[in-house]
């Protein structure tokens, strides 16, 4: 068994479910719905400030990883919460509140990318030289490979992957955020997985070694 396979096996033993629990704790959703209700009913600024704080960092990081320019991130976050402030009474609760808010941010971010004429996937050739040869930490090097690979994904595929793995959303929630059918989410993630395997030779070889 190669060192790569041993490492992957070790990683596989670690559950990533904690992230999902952290982000999508039902009690968080209930308390955030209370905040939204206060905003809708009494234009409560304190509730609005608290809700804003709950999402500011999460959205800023997500937008950064969508390649939204640094100078546009604040505008997208504030445009998102402008909608939250003005449409709070319209939220019917059919989905998680986080799904609604992140969905708004996603659509605003796509608009920002279009305005900035930023292609959601890099035109640069895959630069293997950018991987540090100085690093002796295998996990760090693998992380660099993967980070580089992620930048090659079209924004729709990358968002499906980020929402699933970074924010821990279910397939149905990702579909709600991206406003597309569930099967489209599965297809996007399937393609993202295939693309990463093509780009990352270690990852591509892993199935064969382990099978």
């Amino acid at each position, binding site marked *: 068994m190669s060192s790569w396979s041993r490492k992957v096996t070790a990683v596989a033993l670690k559950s990533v479910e904690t992230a999902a629990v952290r982000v999508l704790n039902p009690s968080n959703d209930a308390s955030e719905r209370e905040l939204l209700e206060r905003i809708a009913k009494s234009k409560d600024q304190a509730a609005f*400030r608290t809700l804003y704080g709950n999402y500011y960092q999460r959205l800023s*990081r997500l937008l950064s990883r969508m390649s939204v320019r640094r100078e546009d991130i604040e505008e997208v976050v504030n445009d998102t919460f*402008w909608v939250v402030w003005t449409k709070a009474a319209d939220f019917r609760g059919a989905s998680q509140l986080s799904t609604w808010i992140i969905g708004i941010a996603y659509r605003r971010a796509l608009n920002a990318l279009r305005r900035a004429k930023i292609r959601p996937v890099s035109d640069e050739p895959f630069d293997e030289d950018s991987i540090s040869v100085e690093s002796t930490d295998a996990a760090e090097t*693998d992380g660099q490979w993967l980070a580089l690979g992620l930048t090659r994904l079209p924004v729709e595929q990358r968002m499906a992957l980020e929402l699933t793995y970074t924010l821990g959303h*279910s397939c149905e929630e990702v579909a709600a955020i991206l406003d597309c059918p569930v099967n489209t989410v599965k297809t996007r993630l399937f393609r993202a997985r295939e693309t990463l395997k093509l780009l990352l030779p270690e990852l591509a070889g*892993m199935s064969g070694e382990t099978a």
Partner: protein
Amino acid sequence: MSPRIPDTHAEAWALLPWIANGRIAPEDREWVETHVQSCAECRAELAAQRMIANQVQRDGATSPAPAASDEQRSFNKLWARIEASESATTPAADARSSVGASRSSRTVRWLAAAVVVQAIGLGVLGMSLRGSEGGKPDFVTVSNVEPRINAPAVRLVFAPGASMSTINTLLAHQGLSIVSGPGASGNFTAVLSADAVATGASAESVATVISKDPNVTFAQPVAR
């Protein structure tokens, strides 16, 4: 109703990311896990997806987070935008009808507070008018027209629970006097006393200090 058991390799393969993140639908979990146990290809793919999930999470957690001061500054900009919008669409004289019946009790509280604060402000303004010659402040409303005076001014919104005595103490400490308000969003305008200016205070410095007080939810220098 018996559960659906597709148990096909392709369907299980497509759902592996949600086995990896623990968010697969309960009705799918059992049959997918059963398939994975018997399918070496799916087991390897699940391991790969868990590795990617772990790396993506680690990458997300280590990416630089915006500073807390950035968050407050960003929120202040949004709140100013909201205030400007609501002021533009809601004439102050007709505030009650535009904010809706659900806000009536809060509006009444603000109006009551406004009467007291305005009385204080008018008193201060009256004394100021008597004691000076020329260059009289000429305020209209904070939400529609910027004050046409030279004194540094700060726009403020107080926390709903802040008492009058607390507000008075807070203003006195900063050398501020309310001269107008509340606007449609409950905002007041306060000007800096000559003494405070003489000791080096500015609208910016006072807004920065006072914004950190829990009884103040918004503080911004008035641009002139």
